């Protein structure tokens, strides 16, 4: 099977400081990969390099495109990469403010990606938006409200709807449940798990919450100081950690 995403030898420095280095892995269709590690270990740097928000100093990020098969997204032209960013790829930010247009209604936020790829029928756009709000458990009568009027959890669910409406094949998420209180996190996780299964999504999820990876991720990479120190099936890594740092990480949280 062709991997959906093939990552080779990614390296990114900020001046003398290493952001991440020596990272490579394959992600197969329908797989969810978790990336955990302490603060500053390079998780966001890596994710942003993969999603095209940062350009790594070297490496390859090969995506199996619908039309042309595997292509290195780092050497694609910018228009192609941006097109990917609003069709087959999605990015869920930790802070919904970074991923939503706060001055645009919920319906407009969800509809934007549709309009960006050429939807020109108001009624259809609105129907899709209503449908997606329902799928992320936002009542249909909130469709014309601005995100400002939403709770943090609702904003995050709106951001997810806005990203998934075009049926992407790969979703990048950076701490999607960070900043939310525990009960809200649990609900969001449930929702995400449902959507991932239902849509057969592939995803890369950065978090430092082991509960998140336990619930969502098929595979896990553990990062420390910019490097991947351990990788494998989630349950294996969590139940039988090999690397000292992973052992520390697992033992430092309550068993989940």
């Amino acid at each position, binding site marked *: 099977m062709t991997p959906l995403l093939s990552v080779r030898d990614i390296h990114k420095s900020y001046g003398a400081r290493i952001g991440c280095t020596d990272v490579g892995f394959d992600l197969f269709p329908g797989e969810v990969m978790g990336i955990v590690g302490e603060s500053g270990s390079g998780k966001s740097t890596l994710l942003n390099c993969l999603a095209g928000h940062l350009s790594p100093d070297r490496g390859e990020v090969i995506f199996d495109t619908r039309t042309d098969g595997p292509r290195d997204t780092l050497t694609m032209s910018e228009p192609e990469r941006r097109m990917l960013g609003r069709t087959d790829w999605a990015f869920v930010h930790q802070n919904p403010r970074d991923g939503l247009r706060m001055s645009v*209604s919920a*319906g407009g936020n969800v509809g934007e990606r549709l309009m960006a790829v050429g939807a020109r*029928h108001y009624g259809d756009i609105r129907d899709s938006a209503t449908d997606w709000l329902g799928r992320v458990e936002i009542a249909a009568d909130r469709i014309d409200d601005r995100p400002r009027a939403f709770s943090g959890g609702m904003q995050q669910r709106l951001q997810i709807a806005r990203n998934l409406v075009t049926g992407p094949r790969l979703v990048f998420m950076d701490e999607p449940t960070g900043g939310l209180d525990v009960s809200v996190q649990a609900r969001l996780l449930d929702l995400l798990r449902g959507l991932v299964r239902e849509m057969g999504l592939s995803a890369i999820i950065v978090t430092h919450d082991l509960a998140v990876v336990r619930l969502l991720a098929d595979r896990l990479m553990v990062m420390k100081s910019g490097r991947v120190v351990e990788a494998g099936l989630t349950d294996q890594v969590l139940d039988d950690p090999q690397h000292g740092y992973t052992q520390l990480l697992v033992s430092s949280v309550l068993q989940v």
Partner: protein
Amino acid sequence: MSDYNFAYLDEQTKRMIRRAILKGVAIPGYQVPFASREMPMPYGWGTGGVQVSAACLTPEDKLKVIDQGADDTTNAVSIRKFFERTAGVETTERTNEATVIQTRHRIPEEPLTEDQILVYQVPIPEPLRFLEPRETETRKMHALEEYGLMHVKLYEDISRHGHIATSYAYPVKVEGRYVMDPSPIPKFDNPKMEMAGLQLFGAGREQRIYAIPPFTRVVSLDFEDHPFEASKADHPCDLCGAGDSYLDEVITDDAGGRMFVCSDTDFCAGRQDAGYRGRLNAEEAA
């Protein structure tokens, strides 16, 4: 006259502005940056339009200046005086006599010809600005033809008002490529932008010039199920009876009396001269 170079600006500056204009004509709808000069009038008074007009005028030209369709408003009068003083060109209020027409907020009702230039004063040239404040990003969106955001604005309009409520500065796509702000003209005027005359747009504070060459395709953005409509008040003019011109509503007393009159004063006067009469003008009919 000897105190100024012809039309106020020095020849070097005019050359720079003409270069920007030519580039604008070559790439219809594209916003060309230019080094806007200080003009002896405040921003918001049409400094961009004035600089474009100054770069276009020749001693043989006949200039008309309108503001909201009228030749006699303060803004129009002061710009006309400015060019009378600094260029010594003839001025006129007649649309069909003018070779250069500077305008704020209207396109004349009378169709322009190939021999005429229409210069618009533009406050905010960037149509994507209100949803995307980052200039770097809007430039990229233009470059890559990523105009979905423009429809988000129209979507918001419909979701809030039940229809596209944008009635001024209604966005258009020029020659199938660049999305452009037509300046705050009423959307009633949008279809007129496909015309024989040359249209030039000058934004002084924002330092941008753009253009629509003659006979260029100009399409107002819309949705399939909410098509663009060039609407106007549903009345004939109370002075000249015209049923197809853009109207201003004028309050005539404090008892709710009001009348609708052509915003294009020259057009209205011309029709009255030709004997046309509206509802409130009937008794004077010849």
